């Protein structure tokens, strides 16, 4: 963030080149045709990060496996949080894991979404009185909760489709 000499000071860029270019880019991205284009692209490219927090991961794997195949919606579990935009909390979040989940969430580039899966992620579920769990809604802004213990893959698929539609019509901001 340095002041750059700019002959058009006061005309095009108000003072700081970097900041005003960011503003301009943001303005451009928020304009209607580009924004709806962008929302369309994001909605068909929800890539969850490879981050299994608990046993609901078994059903999460089933979601991308042949019978339920969420890749039809462009849903592709991917390696590093830097390249993904969806964090699926798969079941119980233990205290140890919650910290990792927070770091993973911070590492993800925006726009990013969180979907909490399972009764444990809702409010503890069967482990509501455990000494080692946290409720994910205290940590992240969560778009959708998926009830069930574990939720059936259909339910997970439905949540993803709902998120997909929400993103598509620009409902996530």
């Amino acid at each position, binding site marked *: 963030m340095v002041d750059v000499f700019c002959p058009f000071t006061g005309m095009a860029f108000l003072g700081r080149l970097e900041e005003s270019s960011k503003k301009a880019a943001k303005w451009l991205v928020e304009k209607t045709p580009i924004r709806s284009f962008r929302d369309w692209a994001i909605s068909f490219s929800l890539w969850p990060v490879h981050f299994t927090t608990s046993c609901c991961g078994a059903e999460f794997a089933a979601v991308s496996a*042949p019978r339920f195949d969420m890749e039809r919606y462009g849903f592709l579990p991917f390696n590093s949080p830097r390249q993904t935009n969806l964090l699926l909390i798969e079941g119980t979040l*233990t205290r*140890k894991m919650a910290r990792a989940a927070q770091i993973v969430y911070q590492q993800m580039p925006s726009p990013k979404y969180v979907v909490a899966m399972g009764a444990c992620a809702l409010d503890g579920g069967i482990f509501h009185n455990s000494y080692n769990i946290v409720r994910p809604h205290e940590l992240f802004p969560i778009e959708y909760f998926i009830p069930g213990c574990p939720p*059936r893959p259909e339910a997970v698929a439905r949540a993803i489709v709902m998120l997909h539609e929400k993103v598509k019509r620009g409902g996530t901001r």
Partner: protein
Amino acid sequence: MSSSVMKARLLSREGDESVYEVFIGPQHPASGHMRFIVRLQGDVIVGVDPDIGWVHRTMEKLAETKEALKAIPLFERMTIIDSQNVTIGYVRALEKLLGVEPPPRARYLRTLLSEMNRIASHLYGMGLSGIFVNHSTMFMWCFGDREVWIQLAEELTGARLTHAYSIPGGVRRDLPQGFAEKARKAIRYMRRRLEEYRKIFFDNPQVRARYEGVGVLKSHEARRLGVVGPNLRASGVRYDARLLGDYGVYDELDFVVPTAEEGDAMARLLLRGEEIRQSMRIIEQVLERIPEGPILAEKYLRLIPPKLREPALKEGRIKFPGIFANLKIPEGEAVARAEMGHGEIFYHVVSDGSKKPYRVRVVTPSFRNVVLFRYLPPGHRFMDFPAIYGSLDYFPPESDR
């Protein structure tokens, strides 16, 4: 090998400044819910420190706060992919304390679901071992075929994964109509698929190159380390908790406990395939021989009010009488062992005569296999590590409980 040499290999090594430490997990494409601190010297692993506990949901403590029966669905969450086998041990321990034996039909039904779960669990493990060498087809095939067995189990019990099928004294539901035919069809399908797995995976030169001769565990080491399950049998030790005759009807059935001598990762994978074959044999025999009769012990059937008892027996669904949840567990102790897909699970239930167990100790197969992460990888290449991990069929929530 003396135990001191073994101990030296087991202890974690910090290494000097030439060691390159890589943290694999908890967010990592190949770690699932755990972390490995892998110490490398060049490309060679000097030591691995498994850091578990990321999914520790305090099952043992919570079991003490619940009525004994309610802990069955709780323990299922340890190994959600294998929930009948993980709870059968607990149910057996309760049965020993309560002094009831399940009727023959219930024992057959338990065996049936156990084997279906074992197949699903092995498919899960084989699928993961595929993705750990980036063989995505194996992963997808196994997970797709797993759905066949999950659907069958759903038909039998009403739940995809969390069956809560065995209860002290029997099972919860009877065999649905037309189940035998569907199961036989699934077996025919699976036999055909296993051939295809062999073609694309087990005989694939790339897979053989990655798995053969990697992570060799010798027989005497496996004995001393208390390794369980297919990992033990692949090292040439013939031991299977099903052979103890403590639960199910395994002593009446004709099946083989496969073993392999090599003890490497490939042997562990092939053994899982062989166990699926044996499980299918067991299912066929169970469907043939299953006797007629009640599915809950007489002692508990009597607890059901008479006007509900007749429909319950007719429909084959047990609706729990209220008193059932409030069973007093007689004072005493019981141990039970059962063979899960991953290996042997051990339960020790201590009761002080109240409704809730005083202490439940459960040692899960994955927890007993954790030592292998210390023991096997040193000396291997870094890229062998996922192969070793994949071949061990380790399930973190089970280990952490």
